């Protein structure tokens, strides 16, 4: 087996982000279906929260990239 263990780290980071963004998306859908008139506001908040989660995942990717050198 060849390769770097850093790739495993990047994969683990992506799992975390997947769970996070999945939760955010799911709850936003729920919120929109309960209150369709608030869809715009919910979407904005959802995108911000998703970007924050993605940021944390990218921390992991960066560390993996640095560890790969």
């Amino acid at each position, binding site marked *: 087996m060849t390769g770097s263990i850093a790739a495993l780290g990047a994969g683990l980071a992506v799992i975390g982000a997947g769970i996070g963004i999945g939760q955010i998306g799911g709850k936003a859908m729920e919120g929109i279906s309960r209150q369709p008139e608030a869809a715009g506001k919910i979407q904005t908040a959802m*995108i*911000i929260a998703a*970007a*924050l989660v*993605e*940021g944390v995942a*990218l*921390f992991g*990717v*960066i560390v993996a*990239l640095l560890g*790969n050198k």
Partner: protein
Amino acid sequence: MDFSHILNSKKITLSVVLGVFLTVFTCKAFAIQEKQVPEAAVENKETSKFDPSATILEHIGDSHYFHVGGHIAFPLPVILYTDKGLEIFSSERFEEGEKAYQGKYYQYALIKDKVKAVVADGKTIDETATVIDLSITKNVASMWLSVLLLLIIFFSVASSYKKRVGKAPKGLQSLLEPVILFIRDDVALPNIGYKYHRFMPLLLTVFFFILINNLIGMVPFFPGGSNVTGNIAVTFVLAVVTLIVVNVNGNKYYWKHIFAPDVPFWLYPIMWVVELAGIISKPFALMVRLFANIMAGHVIVIALISLIFIFKTLGIAPVSIAFTLFIDVLELLVAFLQAFIFTMLMALFIGSAVEEHHH
């Protein structure tokens, strides 16, 4: 200064900007000469595999040359502050990193894209020399271009506000007014409160600086494509500005919350450590978030393009281009989003430092 005539005229404004940029930064473009390599080396080169990670790291990193395309690059000035004095010369002297250059005080060479003082053989790093590199690199040049663009845009908008008092906005002004109002009404006001007025210049500057650098970074041809906001030094400075602004404007409630929170006194030592870590970690998160997002965007785009060279077939090209287009559209969203999130979190931190106590 009034630059509005530049943008109000029907002529293409980009040529003016590019003209200024090129006069400032370049003496002459040069064609990189095909190197004379021995036969064996050529064979070796053909059989050697394409290395995507080296390509990616080269593209997202900084450089002493501004590549236009193919084998054409603009050399940029190298400014070195050594322990013996200042050295200024063009990066053309290195001839694409092939040769060492004998400066006034030391001999210099490009080692892994960094200027290093070397000993006589031109390969080994001279450990005795202290060299601080203050060069105008690709990122600096690109950042100056974006600053120039911002100055032209905002001086023209400001002058049209002066000229058109009480009238509806026009042209560029009507493009930017909603964005500025958005920063004021949806970012500054809710997060900072009634004292928002003092921080508006800072928030607007940071927002438009990050936004324009993100957008210029997405342009795939010269003079775009440099990874300015995806460079940790740039985001570090932005984060340090946030750190200073938040702590200088912190009122007594902010400092009381840090040094004398409402907890039993024997918890104070722990709370101090936690709160001081909080002061540092907030700007740190800002720094890494912007850096990682923009850098990851560049990496993904180049990795997808690299697929063509990894599979060595044109058949994969349509797939690769389609994915790249998709990622580029996503990155357009990310460019706005990251500028917005940076500004919003900055406003939030400032707000937490200036808010009045309410219990």
